[in-house]
């Protein structure tokens, strides 16, 4: 007897979801039993059966975002820039990029260095 994990896609844009497991002697019997157990009311439009022994179950190191990868969350910096100078009436032709140096505190470059110094590289 083999244990199969049962995945069902409800319909349309729904994703496959694990709905339970069944125990059967052959793939064909597993299909019939999965139908009778989990699809009696046509609860889905696709069915996957996966032998439990074939399921890859990685450990927590793979699952959880390490602290050194916090930058991937892209949720900004904890000290946002503060406007210190009034909005100029027009662009000064001698300063092609006025916004960068107007940031209070550190620049974008400094932020990148901070993140990189925390831990490992990608």
């Amino acid at each position, binding site marked *: 007897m083999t244990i199969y994990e049962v995945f069902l896609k409800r319909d349309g844009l729904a994703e496959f979801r694990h*709905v*339970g497991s*069944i*125990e059967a002697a052959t793939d064909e019997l597993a299909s019939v039993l999965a139908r009778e157990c989990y699809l009696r009311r046509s609860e889905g439009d696709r069915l996957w059966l996966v032998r439990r022994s074939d399921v890859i179950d990685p450990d927590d190191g793979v699952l959880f975002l390490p602290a050194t990868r916090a930058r991937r969350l892209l949720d900004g910096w904890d000290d946002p820039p503060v406007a210190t100078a009034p909005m100029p009436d027009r662009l000064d032709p001698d300063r092609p990029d006025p916004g960068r140096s107007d940031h209070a505190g550190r620049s974008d470059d400094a932020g990148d260095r901070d993140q990189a110094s925390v831990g490992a590289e990608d």
Partner: protein
Amino acid sequence: MPRRRWTSPGHFASFLDAGGLVEVDDEMPDPYRRAAFRLVVRHANGELLAALADRDWVAKAPGLRLKMVALARAQDELGHARSLYRVAADLGGGTDGRLLDDLVAGRGRPAEGILRRSGDWAERVVVDHLADSAALAVQRSIATRCSYGPYRRALLAMLPEEEAHVAVGLTRLQRAALGTPRQRLAIQAAVDRRWQPLLASFGPDDAAEDDELQRWRLIAEPNAAVRDRWVAQTVPLLDELGLSTPERDVAVGAEADAEVARLIDEAAGRRQRTAWVRRAMARPADPWVDQVAPVSAGAGAGGRR
């Protein structure tokens, strides 16, 4: 490899108190595993026995529509039993087949599902609705707070189907209870005979076991609390149909508990239980199902067989 482990009983208890869900590959404490296993196996046995009882009525139900209802219910209940046996087998480290062997051999706890066996069609009508609504009350209660994830998910998946069973059962009960005088008398007699077994189907008032299951957050409240709430909902419903219940004026108290315990012993006694289960499971199918032969048209509508 265990997914999670808890360093101390206190750590596990606070995880449960915070509403944590235990999963199959967690390293749960052994007493928790045993308690969850017993709870799920008992439910699985109940579903299987209900399916067998329904199957027996496929041939005998009066009319094609009622045969189809019995067949559909049996299929639902077999599906529930099968998914619950899988949850239990994963907990107990065994196979589905071994759990069935245990049931047939009479090992483990008496299955309250035995109380679903019913004598005549009137009892069937009464039991189909009331036993299902009783089971639904229990399952809803467990599904609100059960700490074992796979069981809780299985419960949530089967609740809509149980609700459908209760609804179709209520229609049948209403039709019979508001039918001809003969039907109404038959239904009242069936309620009189089945009321105590129905109360017994909630399980005995076993404080020690309730406490253990509650401590593990496997059940949300003791058997007696679910039963009393069900009685409070069901008596007015039967009242509307002009049906009286034997316990009308007596609260479900200590003497009623003793009666319930006696009924469980009597109806789910080891010898009788195993004999019925063994016979029911040994018979592959009703001859009627094999031959697809017409059943004698002698069965009347509603309350008569």
